[in-house]
């Protein structure tokens, strides 16, 4: 679907839910509220955007709304792309999961959850995917210290600050 036709059908079907944004590139982009995200994505899937390319997270700290979850879709027939941007609330950000619409959404949503702490309601298995399971904090948030827990160590010597703190395996080393 061409961008103009897409904007028209959005204006017809979702006049209040979808806001058209300017785009610096060829990919048309729209802002969607979290509560209407699922119906809009379902609509786009029916319109031919059958492939979910990626789900990304953004942290605009200290601006508000702070978080953004970005969806990229592709129409394989016409090679058209579309980008949806969705801003959950700042405290305890939650976005509905689309893992039942696209199976590939499940790991992508886990990644956003792992690194930004955005929860996806209805996700079949929302656990960490890149960081260790017992990790604390969300590393790609702007207020996360660059060196993680090591940055909180009051150290007289550099070696102290570089120490590895994770629990050791049982057994002799």
């Amino acid at each position, binding site marked *: 679907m061409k961008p103009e036709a897409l904007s028209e059908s959005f204006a017809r079907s979702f006049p209040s839910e979808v806001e058209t944004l300017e785009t610096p590139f060829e990919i048309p982009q729209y802002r969607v509220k979290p509560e209407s995200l699922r119906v809009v994505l379902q609509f786009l899937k029916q319109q031919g955007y059958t492939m979910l390319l990626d789900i990304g997270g953004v942290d605009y700290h200290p601006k508000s709304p702070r978080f953004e979850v970005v969806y990229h879709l592709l129409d394989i027939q016409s090679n058209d792309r579309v980008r949806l941007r969705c801003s959950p609330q700042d405290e305890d950000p939650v976005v509905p999961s689309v893992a039942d619409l696209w199976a590939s959404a499940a790991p992508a949503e886990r990644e956003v959850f792992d690194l930004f702490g955005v929860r996806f309601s209805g996700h079949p298995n929302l656990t960490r995917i890149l*960081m*260790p399971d017992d990790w604390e904090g969300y590393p790609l948030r702007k207020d*996360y*210290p660059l060196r993680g827990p090591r940055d909180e160590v009051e150290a007289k010597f550099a070696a102290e600050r*570089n120490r*590895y703190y*994770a629990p050791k*395996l049982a057994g002799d*080393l």
Partner: protein
Amino acid sequence: MEMTNGQFYVTSVDKFARWAQKSSMWPLTFGLACCAIEMMNLVAPRYDAARFGAEVFRASPRQADLLIVSGRVANKMAPVIQQIYQQMPEPKWVVAMGACAASGGIFDNYAVVQGVDHLIPVDIYVPGCPPTPDAVLDAVLKLQDSIQSGRSKGGVMAREA
């Protein structure tokens, strides 16, 4: 056993064992990052570690003597590398290849362990980003020298000494 032409060679058991160890140092197939690409060259014809008995990259730690830590060690990889080191039979040796394995390199961040020597004992550090294959080969040769001379025994034997 009958000696042919009366020739024989005198050595000690210890010396003979060390010669055997140094002449067949089998590295573990364990690539972590871009350094692993350079490490692969080690066994290719250009550098050919087969000349020094170190060409057989084993896929199982149970059959390997040499762990070449080739690249940055992520926090999530830390327990894995410890377990693999424990699975290797004694005597065993470790080469920290490149700046990241030695000190974390440019990755002074939350995800990367600042040097693999926080996790396992290291015998030889190879500088470079990445080191050239001949630098790694040089490390293997230096390790062989120190095994032959008895300086580096590896694993349990090193702790007893």
